[in-house]
């Protein structure tokens, strides 16, 4: 099967239409199970009490924030190198979803921080990195918005996404570096390596639920964008004929 097999919008729309309800259903099911386990089954932490349950939303959101950016950069690379027409579309569609997860990670991190540190915001290395990632998403979306020609916008945004992808590890490293200089190591970490196994399962289920939700939402957004383009093309044809 060639790289461009699914470049045919009709074929893609059909396939996406078939996958979408399954992804959506799976997301709903996993979310229900995950939330039940996280909110009811998992015992309260002996130190943090019930606040620990925020972790089951916060940690998967933070994972998704990273995952979406990787997806975005990957799609951008495919779009730039192989000029696959759906790749730009996928990149564009994934950005607001990623920004949403990033925002969720920031808000839940902040809510979790209040009882733990007694303040809504701490310049913790992890939170700071996520905040910068949020800015990268905003820049990416703003660039898409600012360039009118959608093909040019796609290419420019793809260049930006790749530049961002090269920079994400550097930024992460520099923020960690900065953090070790400015904070004593005794500060309580949000999620240390020691996660009790009873917490691991709900966490993984929630992470999978988020992934499935991402797939469902991505396909919806891509189909919507395709339809918008089709309308634009039809209007253009109408006007020029």
């Amino acid at each position: 099967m060639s790289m461009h097999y699914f470049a045919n919008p009709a074929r893609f729309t059909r396939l996406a239409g078939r996958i979408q309800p399954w992804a959506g259903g799976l997301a709903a099911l996993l979310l229900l199970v995950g939330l039940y386990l996280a909110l009811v089954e998992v015992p309260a932490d002996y130190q943090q009490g019930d606040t620990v349950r925020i972790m089951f939303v916060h940690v998967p959101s933070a994972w998704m924030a990273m995952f979406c950016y990787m997806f975005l950069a990957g799609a951008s690379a495919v779009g730039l190198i192989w000029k696959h027409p759906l790749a730009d579309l996928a990149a564009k569609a994934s950005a607001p979803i990623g920004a949403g997860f990033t925002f969720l990670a920031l808000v839940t991190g902040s809510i979790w921080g209040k009882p733990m540190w007694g303040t809504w915001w701490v310049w913790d290395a992890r939170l700071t990195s996520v905040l910068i990632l949020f800015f990268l998403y905003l820049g990416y979306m703003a660039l898409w918005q600012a360039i009118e020609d959608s093909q040019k916008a796609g290419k420019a945004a793809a260049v930006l996404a790749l530049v961002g992808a090269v920079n994400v590890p550097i930024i992460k490293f520099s923020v960690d570096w900065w953090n070790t200089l400015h904070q004593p190591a005794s500060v309580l970490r949000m999620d240390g390596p020691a996660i009790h196994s009873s917490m691991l399962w709900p966490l993984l289920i929630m992470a999978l639920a988020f992934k499935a939700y991402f797939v469902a939402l991505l396909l919806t957004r891509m189909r919507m964008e395709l339809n918008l383009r089709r309308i634009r093309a039809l209007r253009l044809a109408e006007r020029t004929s």
Partner: protein
Amino acid sequence: MFQGRDIACDRGERRIFSNLDFRIMQGQALVLRGPNGCGKTTLLRTAATLLKVARGKLTWDGTDISEDPEEHRARLHFVGHLDAVKGALSVRENIAIWAKVRGSTEDRIEAAMAAFEILHLMDTPAQYLSAGQHRRTALARLVASPAALWLLDEPTVSLDADGTACLQRAIAAHRADGGMVMAATHIELGLDDVEFLQLKPQ
């Protein structure tokens, strides 16, 4: 020989032209004709490698120009809608800059100003030039450094009769040296032995 075979070009999501063939031999001039929006500028910018072809091939002596675009750019001059003339610099400096970037010699700069009759404006800052003088300064680039292929997009805009005559002489001299010209123009350039390429709106 500069040749295009079965070329198609897109702007945005629209196809501007397709199935276009042309050929320019040494010493030949090809004039593009057609109504506004038929793709004359697009074709010239494509020939200058500023745009990519959607289909087909542009070749120079049989070699695809996309194989080494830098080499192709070095052998062409492109005069577009924008003059690339800096108001803060004098006429001479404006011409000298491009001659130097293209590795040309001093004497050609004088020759270029003489060819377009702007020697007397040599030290005038370009911001004080009239539109026609501005244009002449831009066109003087053509003579200031050698290039085999001239791509001219409406070169006579804002030129007076004298200016147009200067351009005609420059083109004639260029062709006599075996140079090629591809020009989009809606007025008669008064050139001998010209081939026409008619573009049709899609």
